[in-house]
Each structure stands twice: as C-alpha cells, then as structure tokens.
C-alpha cells in the first residue's frame, strides 16, 4: 500500500510537499498539519492493523512467552551515512537489544523529535527506510509520536524506539550466566559502523568504501538458539566497541576475559583508517555484530551454524572467560604480549548512534 492510498482528500485537500516542503512547528502542534503528516507519511509507510486502529496506544494479543522490552534513543550524526541512516539504525539497534535476550522481537514504538526546517523529503526517506528495516526484521511499528522543536533546539531528527519481544520459557541468556572457560564468539568484523560514520563527519571527511554494518541480528540469533539453547550470553558491541562490551560483561559476570588479537577480524580499510586517526578498532562502535558466550565444547559447532547465516559469515572464536577477581579484560597481542583492554574515553566520537 503506498502513501497516497492513505490520503484523505476531504480532510487534506493539498498533499504534503515532499519535494520542497519542510517540517514546521504546526507539524507537532496537534492540529490538522500534524494529522496530515501522520496520515500521509507514517501511517502509509508503517502500515499494519494495530497502527491503523488510530488510537493513542496499540492493543496486541498475548505473546505466549515472557515479555522482553528495550528502549534506545538515536541521535546519530550525520543522519544519512554509508550503509544506513538514522531510520534503519533506530530499528536495527532496538531489535538487536531485544533479540540479545534470545527473544523474538515483535513490536516497536517510534517517537520522533523533529527540528523545525527538516526537509520533508529527508523525513520521508528516513521513514521509508525504517519501514523497510522493520519489514526485514519482522517487527511491526505499532504506535508512535511526533514532536517538533524550534530550529536550533535539535539537530534535524532524533528518534526513540522501544521494542517488545517474546521469550520462550526455557531460555536464560544473560551476562551473569558466563562461566570460567566459556568461549567468546564474535559474529564478524569490528569497527565498520564507527569508521563509516567518522568518514562522513563534516570535519573529518575522508575517502573510503567502508559501510556501516547496521543490520538486524534476530535471524542469526534464532539459528544460534536452535543449535544451542544453552548459549550463556549474547551482547551487541555497540558504543565503546568490543572493549566496552567485554568490560561490562567482566563486571557483570565477576570474571576476567582474554581475547586473542590475531583472531579478531578487522577489515583492512577499517584498520588503515584507525591507524591514521590514532584510534583503536577494539573501541570503535558496531551496529550489526554480536558476541556470544557458550561452553567451550559447543563453540566450534555454534560458529559453524553462525557462518551459514546472513550477518554471521565471518563468525570466529576470539577468546574465553577466565577466573579473575580483578575482572580484567586481557588482549593477547599480535606482538606477543598481553595488555589490559580498558574502557576508552569516548567523547571524541560523539553521536555515533
């Protein structure tokens, strides 16, 4: 169903100007302009029966499992980047957070904070990209909200999405289940998202073909759980990269970790860009990768399953958890030593998601 099918010529005689039009304060004012924006843009793109009820909330049937819920705000800059945009990211990010519990993501809410002056063509592109991403991730965007703030009070568009999923009773996948000796599996190359964004930053443009890895991982996770329902932990290494995620999990599990630097896949272009910029790829953000912890005897088989799935083709074992009261994350370096991986100070790369 296309956007025009939702046009109500009686209510809105003139269609939205999707070519030269811009968001203005009336689009958030609760009046006719807002109703038209919702009707002609959002309702058409996100088309589903729950949204179509036109209520301030969505009423869905029971899911049959435990409910899983996660929320995330997206302020990425620039809003369009190689490999994605703020719309697809807002779907993938939240779908992945829900899926890391082992749950099947079902529904999303989407809240838009728009800056006065945002071209409607940009908004349309973002909304359509969200719709495509939601379809690919098998989730419905069932409720939403739109606010407009004065020029200068936001940066184009911010999006908040909340995801709801359903979790089978027998699954328990969480950071506190990591055990000493557990293998650490990484689903693919690291640093792609952060470097793709940096390459397009206004003050840092450089020529590269690197694209963001932004992707929904629910399918990969479903295949992994079918192969090994006893996966101990799943986590997506987003902001702060592998370094931050491993440190978080070390603290949560009370264990240390050791990672083999040579085993961590990094694209040559990402490695080169990091070298130039003086940043460590292990601390750079990803949006379509996960790390998994499982018993060492099941790790090889799990990696084989992952490699047959989209977004898991380069899965590999990168290390293991170990007893350590200091909860340190060690890197066994290519150079032939060991060093501790710390959380990096992140303010040099603001607004990557």
């Amino acid at each position, binding site marked *: 169903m296309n956007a025009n099918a939702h046009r109500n010529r009686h209510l809105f005689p003139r269609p939205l100007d999707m070519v030269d039009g811009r968001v203005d304060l009336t689009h958030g004012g609760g009046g006719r302009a807002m109703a038209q924006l919702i009707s002609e843009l959002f309702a058409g793109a996100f088309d589903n029966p729950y949204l179509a009820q036109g209520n301030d909330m969505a009423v869905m049937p029971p899911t049959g499992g435990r409910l899983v819920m996660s929320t995330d705000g997206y302020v990425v800059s620039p809003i369009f980047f190689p490999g994605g945009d703020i719309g697809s990211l807002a779907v993938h990010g939240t779908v992945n957070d829900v899926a890391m519990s082992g749950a099947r993501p079902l529904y999303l809410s989407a809240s838009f904070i728009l800056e006065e002056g945002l071209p409607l063509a940009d908004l349309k592109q973002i909304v359509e990209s969200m719709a495509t991403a939601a379809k690919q991730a098998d989730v419905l965007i069932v409720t939403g909200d739109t606010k407009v703030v004065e020029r200068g009070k936001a940066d184009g568009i911010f999006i908040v999405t909340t995801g709801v999923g359903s979790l089978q009773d027998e699954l328990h996948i969480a950071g506190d289940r990591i055990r000493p000796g557990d293998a650490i599996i990484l689903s693919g190359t690291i640093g792609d998202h952060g470097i793709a964004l940096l390459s397009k930053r206004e*003050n*840092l443009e450089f020529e590269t073909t690197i694209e963001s890895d932004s992707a929904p991982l629910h399918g990969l996770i479903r295949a992994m759980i079918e192969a090994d329902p006893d996966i101990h932990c799943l986590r997506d290494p987003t902001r702060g990269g592998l370094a931050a995620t491993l440190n978080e999990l070390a603290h949560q599990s009370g264990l*240390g970790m*050791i990672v083999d630097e040579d085993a961590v896949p990094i694209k*040559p272009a990402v*490695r*080169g860009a990091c*070298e130039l*910029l*003086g940043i460590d790829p292990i601390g750079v953000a990803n949006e379509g990768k996960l790390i998994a912890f499982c018993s060492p005897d099941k790790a090889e088989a799990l990696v084989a399953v992952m490699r047959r799935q989209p977004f898991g083709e380069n899965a590999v074992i990168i290390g293991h958890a*170990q*007893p*350590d009261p*200091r909860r*340190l994350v*060690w890197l*066994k*370096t*290519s*150079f*032939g*030593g*060991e*060093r*501790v991986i*710390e959380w990096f*100070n992140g*303010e*040099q790369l603001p607004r990557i998601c």
Partner: protein
Amino acid sequence: MKFASEFRDGGLARRIATAIAVECQPGRSYSFMEFCGGHTHTIARYGLEAMLPAAIRLVHGPGCPVCVLPVGRIDSGIELARDHGVILCTYGDMMRVPGSHRLSLLKAKAAGGDIRMVWSTLDALKIARDNHDREVVFFAIGFETTTPPTAMALKMAKAEGLTNFSIFCNHVLTPSAMRAVLQGGSLPLEGVIGPGHVSAVIGIDPYREFSDRGMPVVVAGFEPLDLLQAILMLVRQVNEDRPSVENAYVRALPATGNERAQQAIAETMKMRDSFEWRGLGTLPDSALRLADDYAEFDAEARFSLPYRTIPDPKSCACAEVVRGIKRPQECPLFGRSCTPDNPIGSCMVSSEGGCAAHWLYGRHQMTNDGRKNVV
C-alpha cells in the same frame, strides 16, 4: 598493512631485545630518555620495558604537547571562548586538559562556550569561512610536527583575506625542551631517543649540540621495532663511547627534514623571547609567536589576552613526570583522585602522557595463573 605491521613483528622484537641484552655490559647502566610521548605510548602499549634487560631504564620525557602546556594557557583558551564569545577550535587532546578551578575546555563547552574539536587547521579555516559574523580562533599547540599545518593555515588565511580568523599560538620547540632537561642535571642519562616526526620537519642536525657535548641521540620511528632498534643503537654508542646523532627512521625521514615546512614556519612565525612550560619553568627561545607580517592573525593581541602563571594543583607530580624524575605511579594522586576520566594533571589526559599511558597499559601485570590459562 605496509609500513606498520612489519614493524610490529613480535618474533623480530624478541631477537632485537636479545641482542640488546647480549651487548649490555655488566655493571653499566643505560638510562635512556624517550623524549616523545608517542614513544611513551608505544613502549607502554607493547610492554617493551618488560622485554628489555634490567640494565636498561627508559625515562619518559616532556614530548607530549598537552602535558607541557601550563595552566595559564588553558585558562586563556577558556577565557577566549567564555568571555570573548569566539568559536574556539582545537585538537581533541586539549578538551580534557585541566585548567584553574577544575575547569577544562570540555567543561567550558558544556557551560555554553562554542568550542569545537577539529582534526586539522583546514577545518578551523572552513569554520571561519562559514561563520563570517563570528570570530574564530584556532588554539594551536604542539611541537614542530603540528607547526607546519598552523603555518599553512596562516598563509591561506592571509591569501584569502580572512578577517575573522586568528591563531592562539602555543607552538614549542623540541631542542629547547631537550636542552632544559639535559641541563637540569636532575637525572643521569646515557642517551636520548629523538622523536622521528619532529625530525621529519627539522631534520636531525639540531640535535648535534647534544652529541657534541657527549650525549648519544638516536632518532626513531614509532613502532615497537623502531624503538628497539634505536635502543640497540644507543647501547652501541654508549659502549663504544661514540656520542653522535643517528637516524634509525630512515624509511621516513631525510636527514635535512622538510625544507618547505621549515620555510613556511620561518615565514609566518618568530621565536618568542621566553615561554612558560609545565614542569620545565620559563625557558628562553623555546616557543614561537606569529611573525610581524602575520600580527593581524595573533589572537593574543586581538583579544588582549593577559598571561598569568598559575601554579599546578597541589600534590600533582606532572612537573616531575615530564622531566622523568618521577614515574607516574610515584605520584600520590595517580589512580586515586587522578584518572583519565577525571584528570587532575595534564599527563593523565593525552594518550601520549606518561600517566595516561601507564594507566591504560602498564598498571596491571598478569598473574602467573593468567599466563598459564593463556598458554
């Protein structure tokens, strides 16, 4: 990756380390200062000290631009953004350097100052072009490596007739700092590892004054093999009592440096009579100001910035750390009240600072159990 990974070969590194151990003479001590913070970072990151024999002691030097910038200069930068309403552009390392009253550029930005992190002076020029109605100041810091980009920005600004752009010039000179450390006499040193990227600009000749007075100098690149090779060359100079200036970074630097860069600096900047350094005091002929032909771009004159000497925070040992007198862990604040997230001294800020490098890489030693697990 060409020209990087080859110089991180652990097997080769261990062979050079063995050669160093073989050539160290019993009873002799080899204290070498790595002048440059980039070298400090590499040494800490790759754990080179642990590979070297006990006779070799590596001493951190003052070659970290943000570490040697005194508090008064940070305060002036904050004043520019806060009181003069300028757009202040600076390199990322500067953002967290503490000034007076526990302020920093990052905190001044949060309080409303228009402070922008840039990766190049070209970005600052672009910001000036895009904001005709605002004054744009580039907070220029660094040794000879970052001076040519500032010089080129000045030449471009002049050629374009940019009237809303100026430079807060804090460029400092490596040989002057080296002189101060060596004359300070507070530390017995047997050799100096010179910073390769400084020599890529100024060449290696400026260090002859030190070798002429008996101090071996080897200029090195920034990968672990570069440093180990330089240490081996220094050991040989010491053993043979043959102080000289040698180039261990031949793949990147010609002995004469970069003459075009030198010309651009000479055209746009002049020697200051004196300049205050954190840890080294006020040194004559140790820093640059804008040349008279470029006086119109001098932010210090344009905004009548007063210079005040502000003492370092109490108990902070940065002054001793940049001279190599204290190791980071000997500072009473290290890892207690002073961490990279909340630095009190400047050495804890930049990854080139001795304290930050030690915090990030040197603080933990793996237990024997851990090692066994790795094997």
